[in-house]
């Protein structure tokens, strides 16, 4: 078994005329939190969708445990132990909380032709999973479509955590979350890491990224600007990377200007 659970070599992905990713190299280790940084539209979601089997790479190779793989569909990635929280969450609005939680991975009771979805137990697990994120579900049969943005996101995360086996991919998991929920998610990520999972995390919030990540990879306009161990970079370096590695000074200056504006108001 290779040292790295996931390895990408010169992966590119095109959509018609659009170059979303170009020659990406990346390595992910078990027991590590790997943070993907980059501006909006840098290609982070495209990259993790490639890892999760949603897109096939247009060029380049994808190694899992040192073996080259080609995932034809997300199921294959799931079966290989890669669980993903997509930016668009992959929830079905018309279905209930519990049904969404167990979608594709239903627990059953009974046997033979009487095998059936174990709703009571599923309800309990889903409710408990949500509670761990800090969301108290009123009624596990409520349709997802009527829940708040943060509630939906917590459900998607709780689901991935429940079923994640080896690699956990989280695309902006805290985007719509409150302070408390965000902290809970980070706590859960830390737990997963402690359990020896590899975690790939995308976030635009340096306060979420820096405390928990072990390694950072920086994407810019579809290209990788390299990977860094946490020991090599400071919080300020990371913040600079997040801002696309430019214009940061200008921006901080402007932000300060607000505060001044603010004080005089």
């Amino acid at each position: 078994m290779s040292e790295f659970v996931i390895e990408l070599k010169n992966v590119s992905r095109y959509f018609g005329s659009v170059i979303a990713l170009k020659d990406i190299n990346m390595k992910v280790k078990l027991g590590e939190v790997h943070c993907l940084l980059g501006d909006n539209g840098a290609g982070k979601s495209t990259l993790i969708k490639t890892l999760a089997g949603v897109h096939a790479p247009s060029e380049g190779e994808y190694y899992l445990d040192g073996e080259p793989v080609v995932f034809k569909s997300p199921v294959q990635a799931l079966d290989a132990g890669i669980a993903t929280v997509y930016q668009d969450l992959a929830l079905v609005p018309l279905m209930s909380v519990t049904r969404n939680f167990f979608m594709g991975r239903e627990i059953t009771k009974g046997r033979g032709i009487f095998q059936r979805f174990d709703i009571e137990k599923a309800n309990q697990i889903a409710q408990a999973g949500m509670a761990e994120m800090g969301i108290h579900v009123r009624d596990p049969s409520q349709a997802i479509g009527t829940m708040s943005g943060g509630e939906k996101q917590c459900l998607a995360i709780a689901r991935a955590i429940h079923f994640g086996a080896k690699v956990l991919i989280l695309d902006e998991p805290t985007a719509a979350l409150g302070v408390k929920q965000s902290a809970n998610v980070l706590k859960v990520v830390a737990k997963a890491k402690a359990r020896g999972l590899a975690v790939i995390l995308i976030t635009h919030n340096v306060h979420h990224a820096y405390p928990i990540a072990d390694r950072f990879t920086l994407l810019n306009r579809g290209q990788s600007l390299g990977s860094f161990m946490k020991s090599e970079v400071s919080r300020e370096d990371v913040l600079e990377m997040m801002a696309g590695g430019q214009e940061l000074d200008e921006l901080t200056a402007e932000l300060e200007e607000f505060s001044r504006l603010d004080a005089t108001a």
Partner: protein
Amino acid sequence: MVNVAPAADERVRKVSAWKRMLHRPELGALSGAVLVFVFFFLTAGDSGMFASDGIMNWTTVSAQLGLIAISACLLMIAGEFDLSIGSMIGFAGMMMTIPAVYWGWPVWLAILFAFTGAMFIGYLIGYIVVKTGLPSFIVSLAFLFILRGLTIALSILFTNRTIVSGVNNYSEGDWLAAAFGGTIGNGFFVWLADMGIISSYNDGTPIVTGVPMVIVWCFLLAVISSWVLLRTKYGNWIFATGGDSKAARNVGVPVDKVKISLFMFTAFTATVYAACQVFEFGSASADRGVLKEFEAIIAVVIGGALLTGGYGSVIGACLGALIFGVVQMGIFFTGIDSDWFRVFLGSMLLIAVLFNNYIRKKVTEAKH
């Protein structure tokens, strides 16, 4: 692990269990059905519509439609259409009649042959839909033409006619044919007649001799399908597939398999429909099932399913079939001039769904 949220939550208002029940999709259709029944009680109560033979009359029509509405419903929940149901009815009928009558096959073998053939075609339709990503509307529509055409062309090729009769001479005593063409509960009806609960002819035989198998099939399939949809893993996949097939695929639901199997199920129910008709009437004809696919879709939609997929109920679809069947037959009991049949049918349909919708809105309050 954190404790589960307490049962009492100040963010929840009290709503009566009755109101909560009315939220279910099928209970909307129920109100429509009640309306229709009330209407006919008032206008045709004395016409024999609610005597035993009258009841059997519209129940049979409804059950027959319900049969294909059940599978159409599951398929629609999974986000697809099958417009080839009607043609499949004609084709399957020929597939079991020609071997039995012209090629001398035992009838049970001919029936099994028809089921295999029909389900293979269902598989084919599903496979094309899934592999090409073309809308099932257009693919199954092509099969609507192809199957109807094959029915006409092959029956002329093999038998030189488009209506093949005399099946009953061969099916007599066949165990499998009896499962489609027979009736059950004959003893029970004799008893009912003896008790004077239902009327009988002068010679003492009851006016209704038994429950046709088509009703039994419809009932059985409704119960099983409803259970599968609501209580099993596979049912969850059906909802997920129709609700958002991309999301479902991303979390590992075998979307393609679900769709293909449901196309096979519609072919199956179409064949059951065909078999019941063939062994009841003793003949197969090339024009069987024309436009039945649309009646099935109507029933499903009246039953509260969404055309866009992801939402619906088997019981609702059966109630939809009941509404449609009762309205269709009821007009003949009311004695309205039959020139106005379609006007009446359309208006009753519209009123039933409007009422159904009104009731649903009343009890759930506007969601926005």
